[in-house]
């Protein structure tokens, strides 16, 4: 039986960690993810779980120790945000290339500078090509549900890759909302035991991890990583299906909200999807056919599926909560438009950068964007392909 409660996103993830009770958790404090290791430490101090917690001296070391623990045969995880993720960047690559099925609870916060503690996706987007599966949440419930699905995805033999479970800093991590929590035993049963085939601590069966690999072999290792990432798509869907059967809440690679007959769609990720949905409801009442495509799984990137979901609309707003500094949009802008082109879906697109460093994204902003899409599609209005929205100045870039 599910239990109704109210808690923040950080509390929800810490609650899931307690239920899973992994073997080892190294972590280092950084706002706004700090609460997760704090809460886990408190659960341990009170005997509610018995994970071995390592209070490391940096995030580079938290990921290093997590890799060591995972290679040793222990189910491992860590949590971080922003500069913490940037510091462990080298190790993110090693976790993936060593095929370590560990889990990272990421609470999205902007990267410096200027230093700022609020939400955008520059941290995880900076790590988008490190070989990690990335799953994003709209709210605390999804953060909780995604976390419970993380190990079954990561540890699947077809995958064996690390998984990053992302939620928006403060907006999701600290805001208290209603949530449905599952029973400890049911969560444990869903996640299952971790029984690695090969590990450092296997007595009499030593293994070596982390080789020097010359050009004759290294490229195959990368190729196999890419294959595993491709395989993960069906595993993510299988795990989501099992999750729905057990707990009733369904997940896909992305959520389509009122898109079936929509002329204009906003493609967005994370907590701002909730705001976009509200705007859609408001505009639908006024007769405007609008919808939201909320991307849940950014890695692997469901390019073709997105193109098929968008093919019948007139225009799409592609919303990036980060900047690529390339002069033509963020990562979603680049990858979605490439996906549309490859599937020969030639709809209008406008790429918006929004919500950087915690700038509010409001329903009014969403109305404005839908109006602009309409203007572009119906009146042939020429707009810059890459725009900033929500700047202090009335003049939008």
């Amino acid at each position, binding site marked *: 039986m599910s239990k109704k409660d109210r808690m923040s996103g950080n509390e929800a993830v810490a609650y899931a960690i307690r239920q899973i009770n992994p*073997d*080892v958790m*190294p972590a280092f404090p950084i706002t706004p993810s700090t609460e997760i290791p704090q809460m886990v430490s408190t659960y341990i101090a009170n005997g509610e779980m*018995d*994970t*071995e917690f*390592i*209070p*490391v*001296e*940096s995030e*580079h*070391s*938290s990921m*290093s*120790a*997590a*890799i*060591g*623990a*995972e*290679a*040793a*045969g*222990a189910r*491992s995880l860590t949590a971080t945000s922003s500069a913490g993720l940037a510091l462990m960047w*080298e*190790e993110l690559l*090693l976790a993936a290339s060593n095929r370590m099925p560990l889990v990272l609870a990421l609470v999205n916060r902007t990267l410096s500078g200027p230093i700022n503690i609020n939400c955008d996706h520059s941290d995880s987007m900076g790590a988008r090509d490190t070989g990690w599966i990335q799953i994003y949440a709209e709210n605390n419930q999804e953060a909780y549900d995604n976390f419970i699905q993380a190990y079954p995805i990561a540890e699947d033999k077809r995958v064996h890759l690390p998984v990053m479970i992302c939620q928006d800093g403060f907006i999701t991590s600290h805001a208290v909302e209603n949530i449905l929590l599952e029973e400890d035993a049911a969560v444990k049963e869903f996640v299952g035991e971790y029984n690695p085939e090969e590990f*450092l*601590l*296997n*007595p*009499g069966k*030593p*293994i*070596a*991890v*982390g*080789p*020097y*690999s*010359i050009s004759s*072999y290294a490229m195959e290792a990368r190729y196999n990583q890419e294959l595993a990432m491709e395989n993960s798509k069906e595993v993510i869907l299988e795990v989501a299906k099992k999750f729905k059967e057990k707990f009733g809440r369904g997940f896909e690679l992305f959520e389509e909200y009122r898109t079936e007959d929509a002329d204009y769609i906003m493609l967005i990720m994370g907590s701002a999807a909730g705001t976009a949905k509200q705007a859609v409801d408001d505009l639908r009442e006024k007769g405007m056919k609008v919808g939201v495509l909320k991307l849940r799984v950014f890695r692997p990137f469901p390019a073709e599926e997105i193109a098929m979901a968008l093919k019948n609309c007139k225009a799409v707003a592609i919303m990036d909560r980060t900047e690529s500094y390339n002069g033509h949009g963020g990562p979603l802008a680049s990858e979605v438009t490439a996906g549309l082109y490859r599937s020969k879906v030639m709809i209008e697109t406008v790429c918006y950068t929004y919500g950087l460093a915690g700038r509010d994204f409001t329903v009014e902003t969403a109305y404005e964007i839908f109006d602009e899409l309409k203007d572009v599609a119906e009146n042939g209005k020429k707009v810059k392909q890459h725009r900033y929205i929500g700047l202090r100045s009335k003049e939008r870039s």
Partner: protein
Amino acid sequence: MAGYNLKEVMNKPERLAPGHRMCAGCGATIGVRAVLRALHEGDYAVIGNATGCLEVSTYMYPYTAWEDSYIHNAFENAGATLSGVETAYKALKKRGKLPADANFKFITFGGDGGTYDIGFQSLSGAMERGHDMVYVCYDNGAYMNTGIQRSSATPMYADTTTTPVGSQSNGKMQNRKDLASIIADHDVPYVAQTTLTKDFKDIHLKSEKAIYTEGASFLNLMTPCPRGWRYETADIMRICQLAVETCYWPLFEVDHGKWTLNYEPKKKLPIEDFLREQGRFKHLFKPGNEDLIAQFQAEVDRRWEDLQYKCAR
């Protein structure tokens, strides 16, 4: 500790197999084999390794020279990586996921670059947290794997590729960092400084103590490098001996805070005897550079007196 029998110790099975790609006359592999001989038979080990010569030469895919489980992660994080492995052991033992009689020991090797410099924070963290592991620094006094660049372990006046001797330069300008003392100041249970001596007794006993003392231990192991130090490969043991006899590399240990000098030369040899053997110091012997050698000697003397004071406390 049981008595030391050279013949018995040398006849133990090798845990670092031949066939690796390290240079002839390299101190690192001699040192590693000596450390691993201190493992008791029947005990398992997980070996950690920072990026460096030892790593790239002993585990080149698809071959490994290591008989035990082995993990290399990156350059600057051997301490943190092995602390994760050691904690996993604790967790899995506690949860009954490992056989009760499987006894694992944790030993990590890093060069001086990966230990004194880029891996210093990771080492300090692992030592402070008190993981039950041994960190062995194989100290050859420079970044040898990348081609002999200076590190904070490089002695003053050494000719390296980033402190080259030239018309305006006498080599490295600074003295080496005293890492063994710094780790001793972490108040870990056991710290020792050792090198390759004729009977390998010092390194064997210290390795055994480090491995079988509960908690974090650190060994600073001087391992000459023929490429960086410029000596004939066959001379390695003599160079190690001169390092000890000149008190450039004193043999000492700090056991639960108690400093002990393990060897005191009957007649302390002048530092020239150590420097003369090595191409990296040959500029010091040019006429007019006598004061550089005198400065080197003064620093050796100062550190030796300081060590004697610590050991007499």
